[in-house]
């Protein structure tokens, strides 16, 4: 009889302890987070992979963005993780500018004139094969926004990044090119001359708006698409300057009005620019501008003269592969 109160007391303590343990475990359960996340925004998070985790699922869980899985792959140097294995999740760019001990990153930018069978165009089958090849080689399509951040040395891109661009908003691009890209999970940038929209064989503004909604960037190629560097005989320097300014300003304004998003990227018509036209592009608010000439695009390249490699029916599969250089060797040790 005398032991009874002590025993009851023990039971009560036991119950309280059990409830306390359960309560202590509640917060992490509610947040669905691991318990060992590092609070610093600069250091990577040290986490344990769960069964059947992938870089994408880990990125979704800890960075709230599945598309950042590539950062986990590149930081850890591996593409798969088994349950319980330690994984480091970078929370900030860890290699701005793509600088490594053995070189630096360059971003290939592909310039397609149109989808079709003429020499300057690329056929549907060749385009499909090229995109499939990019997919199988692990390339990731980026937007001009991402490229601009990279070139400002404030962003990092996947090692195998590529920017795909079209120099026309044609019906072939809309009906053939864009569906192929969407099927493969790719995006692209369409540079258009605003006067051509809605004309025969060209996309309508509705189609352009739809493409923009689907994640395609709409860039500008002037209002009429005429060369900005060529001065007509008899035209004064000042008259030419004013006509170029009007050409760019009206085109930019038209895209902003129709797409309801600022137009930040310019592909110089005919692929040409000069010091003055580049300066005008910068002054008018374009964040970057593209020429049509093969070349490297490291982070320190000219943002108003970004190289684009023209791809057409004359390029075979082997040549296409050589265009896709993503690393320039250099001793940066």
């Amino acid at each position, binding site marked *: 009889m005398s032991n009874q109160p002590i025993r009851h007391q023990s039971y009560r303590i036991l119950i309280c302890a059990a409830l306390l343990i359960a309560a202590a475990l509640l917060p992490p359960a509610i947040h669905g987070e691991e318990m060992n996340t590092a609070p610093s925004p600069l250091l990577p998070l040290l986490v344990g992979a769960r069964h059947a985790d992938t870089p994408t699922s880990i990125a979704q869980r800890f960075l709230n963005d599945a598309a950042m899985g590539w950062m986990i792959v590149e930081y850890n140097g591996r593409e798969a993780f088994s349950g319980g294995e330690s994984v480091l999740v970078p929370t900030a760019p860890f290699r701005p500018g793509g600088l490594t001990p053995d070189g630096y990153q360059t971003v290939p930018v592909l310039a397609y004139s149109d989808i079709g069978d003429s020499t300057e165009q690329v056929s549907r089958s060749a385009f499909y094969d090229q995109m499939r090849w990019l997919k199988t080689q692990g390339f990731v399509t980026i937007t001009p926004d991402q490229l601009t951040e990279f070139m400002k040395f404030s962003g990092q891109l996947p090692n195998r990044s590529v920017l795909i661009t079209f120099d026309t908003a044609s019906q072939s691009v809309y009906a053939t090119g864009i569906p192929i890209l969407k099927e493969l999970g790719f995006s692209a940038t369409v540079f258009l001359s605003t006067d051509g929209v809605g004309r025969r064989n060209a996309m309508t503004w509705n189609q352009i708006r739809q493409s923009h909604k689907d994640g395609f960037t709409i860039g500008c190629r002037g209002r009429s698409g005429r060369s900005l560097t060529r001065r007509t005989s008899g035209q004064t320097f000042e008259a030419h300057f004013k006509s170029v300014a009007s050409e760019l300003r009206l085109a930019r304004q038209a895209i902003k009005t129709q797409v309801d998003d600022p137009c930040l990227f310019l592909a110089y018509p005919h692929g040409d620019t000069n010091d003055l036209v580049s300066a*005008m592009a910068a002054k008018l608010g374009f964040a970057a501008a593209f020429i049509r000439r093969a070349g490297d695009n490291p982070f320190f390249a000219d943002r108003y003269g970004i190289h684009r490699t023209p791809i057409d029916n004359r390029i075979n599969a082997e040549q296409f592969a050589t265009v896709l250089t993503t690393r320039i060797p250099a001793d940066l040790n």
Partner: protein
Amino acid sequence: MRRLYPVVAIIATVILCGCAGTMNSVSALLSGGPWWTAAQAGNLSERARSLEARGELPMALDHWRLVGRIAVDPAAAVREISRLESKIAEAVHAHHQNGMVELKNNQPAAARNHFLAALRLDPTFRPALIQINARFSPFPLAVHLSAPGDQPVTVAKAVFGDEEKAFLVAWFNDLPVDQALKPGTLLILPKLEKRPTKKVRKKKPLNQLAQSNRLLAENDLDGALALAVQANPNDPEVQVLIHTIHLQQATAQIVSGLLEAARSSLAMVPDGFTGKDAAEEALQAALQRRQTALVLANARDYFDKGEYQQSLARLERLLEETPDSMDARDLATEARYRLALDHFDHKRFLEARKVLEKADEGHQASMTLNETVRTRLASLAQIHYRNGVKHFINEDLKSAIDEWETALAYDPNHDNARENIDNARRLMQKIETLP
């Protein structure tokens, strides 16, 4: 009974854990908890050493910093952090110095690689980034500080070697070309090679009309207009050309949303000129679209503030004018539903029913609410009907009629109420006509 306490405690814990999904956290705790974390210190140290061996010093440093946080004894990590920080700082400094030396030796590629190496080791090292940006990363704009007495003309002469480029100074800085500049004004200028440009001989072109036509064909409307207005204004061909240019300008301005400018351009084109009517139509359509967008934005503002009545009133007016506006229709459907719901929540069932009379049959929530409102009104009608009967039995015919009329208002299909009203009125008439 008390013997069952431990069992109750275990069951309660399991239920609590299960309800909150904590079992998952228990497994997470075992596979990722403090014990697991501490056990990773060795693994991370090994990775840090491997990274350092491959030259990835910043990543190695991050690894050691992590080890310092999780290791039971962080002393070794602290030593490694200190060592690596010094090693990185020395290497960054050396690369910067070597880069400057290579620049002096006129070896830009080698210099660039040294600056890049410094940035790789320390991305926040500004001196290297400044060198890269200034020497290897071209940017088309430069800055210039104005001197006392400067004007765009003097700046153009000093910077471009050509005072006729004063308009460039003005354009790039949004200034009038003849504005006197305060000393020390920061000007943005294009980077152009300083060379006197070849003067374009200002002789009149032999055939301005042909030149202008050629520019028009190239879609250079401003250039074409500038030439056309210099040609003989009495020449009918010149007049047609000028009208065509104005018309094309108007069309481009409409697409760009510059509707006032388009209106001005169209005003320069005489009535009856081929294409003017179509451009006028396009302008009117664009004006209508802009007006629609404004009203829609206004209605959306009211909607967002919860003022559904105001929002709906604007949308209904808008839909009378532009019945095809899908955005307006969708927002009106939503506003109507929210307004009806608000009436319903405040027991204004008649108002709710009135609003829902125009509800879109495809809007499921509206249809469900409509059904609920009608059911509620029918039950209220029945209450008033019964009240009317009570009054009738008590020979208070006027109150009975009032109640039945209320019942009829709530439920227009309440035939008994309608019939009773008629009977009661007849009865009242008879009573009034009795001698």
